[in-house]
């Protein structure tokens, strides 16, 4: 009797924790290792030449890791305490770029995963609902017309993305929305904003402005520092936290609108709220890294192919795979061509595009989730 009960209890526990599979753990572990290795490679190279051993000693330098003053300098912008030159180079110049990559990768992947569930379309990405073009337009307008505001660029980008998303929602709304209407409205808004962007380029008279603008529009981690980490870290944690908690809602949403409603979900409210979270996540990434193309589209795909469609697993997987891929891509962007850096968005586009093509050829049906 007692034995039967213990078996029952065991089954119940298995049921409850059933979504954490060995495969998921392995996937996250592998992603974490890739992130760390790519990060170490990233900080080992640069103008100030250091050997691998020197840099790694600097990275794991206990005098920095356990120094409250140092962390307060990193996270709150206070005075940097005295450190060795190696530590300063690694911790103040090179590592923040890795952290920004981690944050941008995680938020973009999570944001893409949410949008794919909300629109029930695996071709959806943070940018299909107008966020990218809206943010891009706002950035360009700031650089070209309102150049006085350029120190607020991240904020402006996020604002532009949000406004574009609201416009998309308003267009798509007709006594409720539907995935198809949302995507179509997104395409329309994207087109209009892109035309406006191209129009603005004609008013740019300074080559430097054009280059800054292009770096933003293609997505780049060049020159990011602790300032960017400070901007991004809090909203990123909030967005990711809500996204993880909402993964069960997303699973139910994936059953279809009618079923979700029958099960007692207020579909419109949940859809809008989760979209807003996804916008927040995407805005975080846009604010610090610009518009990294293909990323929010491809990463959830890779994770889905490996771990399946359950959003509880998918979200966690995205959280680990996003940083791994972003940091790796940024290593390529920074170190592939000696002497010059290319925007990371170009690398992700060049890798992501063909990968997507490969998926399309391999799978029979695509688009519908």
């Amino acid at each position, binding site marked *: 009797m007692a034995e039967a009960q213990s078996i029952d209890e065991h089954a*119940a526990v298995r*049921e*409850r924790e059933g979504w954490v599979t060995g495969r998921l753990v392995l996937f996250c572990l592998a992603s974490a290792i890739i992130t760390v290795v790519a990060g170490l490679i990233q900080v080992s190279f640069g103008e100030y030449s250091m050997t691998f051993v020197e840099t790694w000693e600097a990275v794991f330098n206990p005098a920095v890791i356990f120094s409250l003053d140092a962390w307060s300098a990193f996270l709150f912008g206070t005075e940097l305490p005295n450190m060795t030159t190696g530590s300063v180079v690694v911790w103040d110049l090179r590592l923040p770029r890795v952290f920004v990559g981690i944050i941008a990768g995680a938020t973009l992947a999570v944001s893409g995963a949410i949008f794919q569930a909300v629109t*029930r379309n695996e071709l959806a990405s943070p940018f299909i609902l107008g966020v990218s073009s809206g943010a891009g337009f706002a950035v360009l307008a700031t650089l070209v017309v309102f150049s006085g505001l350029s120190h607020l660029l991240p904020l402006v980008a996020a604002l532009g993305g949000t406004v574009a998303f609201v416009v998309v929602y308003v267009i798509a709304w007709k*006594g409720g929305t539907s995935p198809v209407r949302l995507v179509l409205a997104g395409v329309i808004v994207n087109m209009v904003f892109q035309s406006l962007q191209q129009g603005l380029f004609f008013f740019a008279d300074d080559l430097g402005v054009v280059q800054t603008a292009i770096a933003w529009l293609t997505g780049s981690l060049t020159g990011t520092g602790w300032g960017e980490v400070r901007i991004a870290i809090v909203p990123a944690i909030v967005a990711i936290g809500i996204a993880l*908690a909402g993964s069960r*809602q997303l*699973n*139910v949403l*994936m*059953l*279809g609108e*009618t*079923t979700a*409603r*029958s*099960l*007692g*979900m*207020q579909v419109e409210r949940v859809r809008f709220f989760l979209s807003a979270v996804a916008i927040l996540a995407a805005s975080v990434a846009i604010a610090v890294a610009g518009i990294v193309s293909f990323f929010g589209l491809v990463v959830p795909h890779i994770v889905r192919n490996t771990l*399946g*469609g*359950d959003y509880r697993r998918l979200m966690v997987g995205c959280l680990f795979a996003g940083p791994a891929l972003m940091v790796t891509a940024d290593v390529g962007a920074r170190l592939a061509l000696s002497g010059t850096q290319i925007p990371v968005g170009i690398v992700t586009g060049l890798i992501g595009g063909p990968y997507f093509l490969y998926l399309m050829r391999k799978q029979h049906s695509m688009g519908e*989730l």
Partner: protein
Amino acid sequence: MAHQYHSATEEQERGQEQGQKHGNGDGHETEAGQITDSNGVTVESALVGDGLELSYPTSEETIVDCARLDIPEAAVTALVGPNGSGKSTLLKSLSNHLDPDAGTVRIHGEDLDSFSQKELARELSVLSQENDSLGSITVEDLVYHGRYPHRGFFDSVSEEDHRAVERAIELAGIEHICDTELGQLSGGQKQLAWIAMVLAQDTDVLLLDEPTTFLDIHHQFRVLETIRQLNEQKGVTVAVILHDISQAARFADYLVAIRDGELYDWGPPEEVVTEQLLADVFGVEATVEYEPELQVLPKQALPNSRL
């Protein structure tokens, strides 16, 4: 007519609309109120549609105009009618998926609008006709989604959820495919999985829109037997749209025949199913045999039918 309406003092006390004329298909006029069966025994209704006028937001046309519809408590009611007669539309309004232009739906005497979406999902479950096929979810995970209305945003799976899911899976008889992904199942197995999901919702009222259409005969019976068991063991009120009038006649306790968005007739199958009904509602010439059991034998389509 198989049924009679007569005004009930109870209804008057509740201040319900009285004296409303019913325009049924055959011109039967009664007053709104409680319903009685042929023996004059009052039948409690779990779900009542009162003066319903239904249309879709995309068109002006009124699709359903139904003075009164009763789904009796703890019985299986089958809604029958030809394609496009408004059965599904009616079911949508009964499950609050479609707001009526006029009229109200009450569940156990309370207006549907007085429930929040989640509260309602604990009282009434509904399985729609087309379920978007989701390939990569296991049957068990799907059934667990049936517990959604019982769980808060941050709640984890409780022991009660676990038991409800187990019961639902057992009742639907799909223990052996628990861990199989939905994409690998046949249409019939899929339907049983979806039914298990609504069973896990653990409601007193269950609405099903054509659960047997497109299934092979074996799975048709499996579905109907599951519904019957649920009704007999737990006294669940079931309203089910069935495509096949002969199946409905054999299976249901009550039939509701709908034509052109209006209630044509209502009552136990033996009284509702007549050759006249088959001609009027379905536009077929058929013989109906009452002995040894009710049987419908369709012969041919009536050429002058307006269907």
